[in-house]
């Protein structure tokens, strides 16, 4: 396993696009961390975002994983381009001729994908921990390390998205088209969602909330970490002053989504392997 990781890391290390995108990713994380310090002037009084309690433990875990999730697109581009360029440079063929089996080749990519997801999780964990330690009003360990399930959700969301990108890269064989496919699929899922929601309202069904939100891969992925805005004190106090009927928010990670996301990850890996095995190069 270490050998396979070593092989894939060698490819990653010496690829220009992956270097650039990793730097962009890290830069954005750091910039996001710094936003906490930015002072906002309201009515002549200076506030910082940190004063809103955004970085209080354990809210910081939820908030940072939610926002950092949007950045997974950058790492996804790395995965898609690393995979698809193996086809366009025909290095995939050469790897096999040099003595890598098709299974080993896919495993090296899957392992690396898992490592990238873990790395992203660790980076967000460290960034949130630092932010929290600086700005949080609570610093008891029992509070700091509560509600860390969001990091698990963050990891799973990355895992399923990355395996999806891996599959797209292998299926389409061209980096740009593979990214296009991911985007088109995203639109496709959005359309299905919109139709389902429309039907639900019209016929009083429960297709979207009951099924689609958990079944479709991108839905389940985004549903793992739900929006944290209504948890923020300021918003919370506003909504509690003006109660809206039927407006209740849940924030927990649902088991159904975890299972769905794991099944999809498995399917994407399996389909990638099946494609690789069946195709002549």
């Amino acid at each position: 396993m270490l050998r396979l990781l070593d092989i894939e890391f060698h490819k990653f290390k010496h690829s220009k696009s992956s270097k650039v995108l990793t730097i962009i990713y890290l830069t954005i994380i750091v910039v996001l961390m710094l936003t906490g310090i930015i002072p906002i002037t309201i009515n002549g009084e200076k506030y910082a975002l940190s004063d809103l309690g955004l970085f209080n433990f354990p809210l910081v875990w939820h908030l940072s994983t939610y926002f950092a999730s949007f950045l997974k697109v950058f790492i996804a581009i790395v995965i898609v381009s690393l995979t698809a360029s193996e086809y366009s440079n025909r290095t995939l063929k050469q790897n096999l001729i040099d003595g890598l089996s098709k299974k080993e080749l896919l495993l090296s990519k899957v392992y690396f994908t898992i490592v990238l997801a873990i790395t992203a999780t660790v980076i967000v964990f460290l960034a949130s921990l630092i932010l929290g330690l600086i700005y949080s009003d609570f610093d008891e360990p029992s509070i700091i390390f509560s509600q860390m399930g969001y990091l698990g959700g963050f990891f799973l969301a990355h895992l399923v998205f990355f395996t999806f990108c891996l599959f797209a890269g292998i299926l389409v064989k061209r980096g740009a088209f593979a990214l296009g496919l991911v985007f088109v699929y995203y639109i496709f899922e959005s359309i299905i969602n919109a139709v389902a929601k429309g039907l639900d309202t019209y016929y009083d069904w429960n297709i979207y909330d009951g099924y689609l939100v958990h079944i479709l891969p991108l839905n389940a992925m985004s549903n793992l970490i739900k929006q944290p805005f209504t948890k923020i004190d300021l918003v919370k106090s506003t909504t509690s002053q003006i109660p809206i009927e039927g407006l209740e928010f849940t924030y927990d990670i649902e088991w159904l989504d975890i299972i769905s996301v794991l099944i999809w990850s498995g399917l994407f890996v399996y389909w990638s392997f099946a494609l690789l095995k069946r195709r002549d190069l």
Partner: protein
Amino acid sequence: MKNILEVNHLHKNYGALTAVNKVSFKIEKGNVYGILGPNGSGKSTTLGMVLNVVNPTSGSYKWFDGSMSTHDALKKIGAIIERPNFYPSMNAVQNLKLVCKIKGVAYDRIDETLELVGLLSRKHSPFKTYSLGMKQRLAIASALLNNPEILILDEPTNGLDPQGIRQIRDLIKHIAKSGTTILLASHLLDEVEKVCSHVIVLRQGNMLYQGRVDQMVQNHGSIFLSSQNIAQLRSFLNEKSFVAELIEQDSLLEVKLSSPVTTAQINKEAFEKGIVLTELAFKKQSLEDQFLELTKN
């Protein structure tokens, strides 16, 4: 371990098209093999199948008498298929290190093989800046990293300029001399003729011949003659028993020999008959002639 590769009834269809039709052959240690065939005769497909990149429709193959799995066997061989495939932004050393990691060998032969192919001075340039000849030489260096049991080369001089072709051929000859088993696929016959001891001939996926190069077609070459009086020369030759076929072209007669005969003897007999030869030359049949003869129908 005598057999390096044994291929049994290997068959590949692409839809209705038969690319390789139940081909069987053996590669033994220490020989230099050529796979000959025109473009599209199934050479690359055959190699692709034994190299684990093309799935056979039917049939089987065994590396090293079946003592190990295909991908482990491939770690012990060196192969170059069609054009050189490397990571464009990596330099020569980085690319070769990756191959070492895949094959599970140490890095210590990288400089040695780069020196052999004459790329040592450019070893830190990215692959994408290389000329085609340099790329092809890097591919040979990469195939030699593991001291391979067999070196498989598919059209190694394709698309190269004359200097590049010469460099690659010299390299192949150099490697062949060191006793490495080589399998060379090519449609260029003089390439095969110069280095190979054994040959496998393919045409439209069918195997026409396998065996030693010198036994490919039983014949004794040709003699070219000319005289002032062609008609007299022709009737003289028609009586001879060594003549298998007589071809006339541009006042030159080509005699295909059915048994060995010396030019001195012909000269003498013709002169005794009063025929003065203006031209007399013996030509051994080239592999090209043999190949064309074999693939004629």
